[in-house]
Each structure stands twice: as C-alpha cells, then as structure tokens.
C-alpha cells in the first residue's frame, strides 16, 4: 500500500506539456521531496495531486483509493491537505480563527447555523498553533503576522485538516535560516502516520529532511530514489549537470 500513487499523470497548457506522464509512488510515513528546476512541473503536479486542477490523463490514488475524479474538497476530506507556496490565508481573521475554521470542519460534525461554543475546536486550534511555534500569537490578525509566521500558520492550517498526506509547496520559501530550522524541526516531529510530500528549493533542507527524493525535469520524472541515490545519480548529472555545478539544477 502506498500513501500516494500517481500513474501516467499528464496535463498540458496548449502545446506545453507541463506534466507529462508522471509516475510517482510515495510510501506511507515518507518524507518525500520533489525537486527540479523552475518550470519542471512541480507546482502543476501538486495541483493535479491536490485536485485544484484536473489532469488530462492519468490516475491519482490516495492510500489505494482512486481519487482522480474527486474534487479538491473531497480529497481533503479523505485526508489530503496542502500548504500554498505563497501564504494564502484569510485577511479578516486572526491566527486562531484561521486554524479554528479548518478545525471546525474536521473535528466536529456538521457546521452549525447558529452560534455555539466549540471548546474542542478552540483547544485544537490552540494546540496546533503551539505545535507550529505560534503559541500566544492566536489573537493576532493575519495581516499583522510576519512572513515566516504566516508560513507557520499555513502548516497549522493544513494540519488542522487531520491529513494522512500533507502536501507542502515550498514551505521554507522566504524564511530566515532560523525560521527554516524551526520548520525542519516541526516537520521531523510530525507523527509517522502523516506522510509528507514537499516541493523545496533549499537543498540543505531537502537532504536533511527527506528520506526519498524525486527529480522532475520538463514535466517528466528524471530520477527517483533515496537522497544518496539521487546525489550520486549519473542520470541527473548527465542529463543536466553538464557544467558540473550541480547547484544550477536546483537554483534557477
């Protein structure tokens, strides 16, 4: 059983095949990194997996269940949860309200039409905020949070959906080294029931966190394996490390 399996996943924009027959298997409990230069199709692949965008062809399976035809909302309800590359939150809410919004959907039964106290939701929001290092910041309005704090809030929001598969799109982008170190710590501390698939440009972060790496290039999978295999891969080298400077592969 895999946590996530994509087979033959494709999506084109006009003549450009952004994602072209991608096969990807993510093991349960993995910390699986998706890397590749800009334009490799990482973000599109993420959208196809999360259901934000429909695939032209191919299949997406979540824990053995075919979710290709399901909407983003249904996939989320089945345990798929994501953070956005550019923190995308709710401008009129506080951090605590933001997390409570997701928690209310995933902790309680149906959403009530009448006001009611939701102690479980509030407690869960509190707990998640402190998990991601935002303890005591719950009352702050989202626009008043720093960039790094918003990225942390993104993670809390995604975790509030009680995911079995967490999709992180460049979680450390724009973070200071200290913030990004804390993020690694947070992701390492996630329970093994949560599988993580993440896109990241920061290779230090990738190799310190990932136990599996897939390299995407021009919409196709170039190479997939353990971090050491990918580091040593001749295919990666030969295909586009012609200059010998491997950093260029990842930093564009």
């Amino acid at each position, binding site marked *: 059983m895999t946590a996530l399996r994509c087979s033959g996943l494709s999506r084109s924009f006009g003549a450009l095949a952004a994602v072209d027959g991608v096969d990807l298997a993510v093991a349960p409990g993995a910390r699986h990194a998706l890397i590749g230069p800009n334009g490799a199709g990482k973000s599109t692949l993420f959208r196809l997996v999360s259901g934000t965008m429909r695939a032209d062809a191919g299949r997406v399976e979540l824990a053995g269940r075919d979710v290709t035809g399901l909407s983003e909302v249904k996939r989320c309800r089945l345990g798929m949860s994501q953070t956005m590359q550019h923190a*995308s939150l*709710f401008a009129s809410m506080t951090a605590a309200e933001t997390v409570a919004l997701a928690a209310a959907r995933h902790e309680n039964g149906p959403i009530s039409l009448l006001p009611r106290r939701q102690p479980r939701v509030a407690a869960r929001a509190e707990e998640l905020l402190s998990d991601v290092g935002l303890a005591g910041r719950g009352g702050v309005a989202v626009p008043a949070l720093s960039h790094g704090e918003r990225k942390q809030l993104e993670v809390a929001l995604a975790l509030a959906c009680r995911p079995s598969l967490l999709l992180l799109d460049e979680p450390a982008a724009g973070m200071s080294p200290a913030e990004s170190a804390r993020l690694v710590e947070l992701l390492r501390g996630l329970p093994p029931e949560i599988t993580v698939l993440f896109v990241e440009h920061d290779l230090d972060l990738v190799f310190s966190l990932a136990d599996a790496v897939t390299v995407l290039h021009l919409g196709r999978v170039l190479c997939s394996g353990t971090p050491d295999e990918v580091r040593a891969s001749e295919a990666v080298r030969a295909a586009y490390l012609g200059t010998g400077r491997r950093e260029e592969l990842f930093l564009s």
Partner: protein
Amino acid sequence: MTAVDAPAVPGGTAAVSPRVPRGRDGLVAAAVLVVLAAAPLFLAPFATTTLARILVFALFAVSLDLLVGVTGLPSLGHAAYFGSGAYAAGWVSINVTAEAPVPLLVGAAVGAVAAALTGWITVRTGGVFFLMLTLAIGETVQQVANTWESVTGGANGLTGVPAVRAGGAPLANAGFVYWYVLAVFVLGFVLVWLVARSPFGAALRGIRDNEPRMRAIGYPTALYKYGVFVIAGGVAGVAGSLLVAQQRLVTPADLGFLTASLALLAVIIGGAGSLWGACLGAALVILIRDALGPGLGGHGTLLLGIVFVLVVYLLPRGAAGLRLRRRSPS
C-alpha cells in the same frame, strides 16, 4: 467582525465581533429597541409610517448584507426575492387569509424557493458574472411580474391587499402595523445576526476572504454560498411580506433593479458586513427617497444617483469590504 474591516466601519462592526465586550452591545441594542417600540406613542402617523418603511427596507438590506458583506457575493438582483415574497404574501392575503403568520411564512417560503431555483447557477459563477447574472435575474423576475397579469396584476401591481390580521382582528391603525413590522424586523435581524456569528457564518467570511483556500481545507464552498443565498432569499421574502403589510400594495418596481440597487447602496453606506450599518444605510436611503424625494418634484432617484457616485469616490474603504476577490496577505 474583523480587525481588517474595523476601520472602514466605525462602530458598525460591533454586532458581529466576537472580541467586543458583549454587555455594552446588549445595552445599546436594548435601548434602541425601547426607543423603536415607543416611537408610535410620540410620533405623528406619517413619521410612524416612514419609520415602518425604514424597518422594512432595513430588513431587506440586512438580508443583502449577509450576501454582500459577509460572504462577498455582490448581488444586483436581490429585490427579486424581496418582491417575490411581497407578491406571494399579498396574493395569499387576498385569496386565502391575511391572518398573521400566514402571509409572513408564505413570503419567506416563496423568497427562499425563488432563491433556491435561481441560486444554483449564480453561486457557481464568480466576479463580474455574478453581478451580471443577478442583475439579469432581477430584471427577468420584474418583467414576469409585469406580464403575468392574472396573478400579479401586471403593471398596476397587486392592489387591494387586506390589512394583516392578528388574533382575528385586522391591524387597521398605523401604529399596530408599525409594531407588527417592528416585531418581525427584530426576529429577522436576530436570525441573520445569529447566522453571521455561527460557525457557518465564519465559513462564509472565509469564502469572502479566500474561496480557493476554503476549498483546499475541505469546505464545499458552492454549497455554502448556495445555502446563504437561499437564507438571504428567505429573509428578503420576509421583508417583502412586511412591505405588503405596510403599504398594502406591490408593484413591479418593488422587485426591480432600482430597489435592488438602493438596497446595495444602503449596505455600502453602512459598511459592508455590518448588519447595524446596513440598517442605518437603509434609513438614509428611505429618508432621501420618501422624505426628500417629494421636495425634489419626485426626483429622489436623481439625488440617490449622485449619492451613489459620491459614495464610490469618497468611501473607498466603505466599499473595501466588498472587493470581489480580496488580496490575501503575501
């Protein structure tokens, strides 16, 4: 309601804010209620009637605010549901019974059903398509009212609506009608207020702020928008039943474009999302139309058009809460 909107609407957001001390609000609300209830005792009948008109329009504006301010769905055709409710309540009063809760419930039901029939298409569109579709629906419904003479009375409207009856006796006196309107207004307002403060209301504000993100965290947003569209239609229908109770007449103009846009104006003047503000905006609009209009030779619309233009230029922050797609912080 929100820290972001608060500066735009001084004092207006208190009603839905979870962070403002509730005791003071309760006191203010109680005081306003006492003054409103006592009003007919010291106001002239004409002033009482105007106040009743304001309450009717205020409830209509509040129902629109649930869409525009809370959910971020700027409807230009909300009068369709207001008018449908009014016609239905009037028709029932003439042909079946005018006994108190019946016209009210029929108005609510017809408003909600009309919203349910038209809403499924509109809520799945966004941005300017929503504006245009709601506008088209409003106008379509008005033309139906104009042409379906056997039921609606055509261009002359539905006339000869009997007075609402409570406990078997008709409410003949302007003061009693006013109290009836006030009682229903309070009920409707409280209902909308509760919805806006509920977890459902929080989800609606989430949709207003960032709908794609709401979908990503598992909210079927089209369903929520549909739900609030139907609720707003039902409340507008209630307001419509009050309209017919108050003026004993419904005309196609009551479900037209002008009525819909005046309600939108009321919401914007009051600061979108603030239910109290919408009531104050409604008062201003009705005062201009009914009290100042006759002094301008019946051309209150001219003044309202100018107010529209001024509001857009001078109250950019009042309209800020309405932005179709709010920029998320990034």
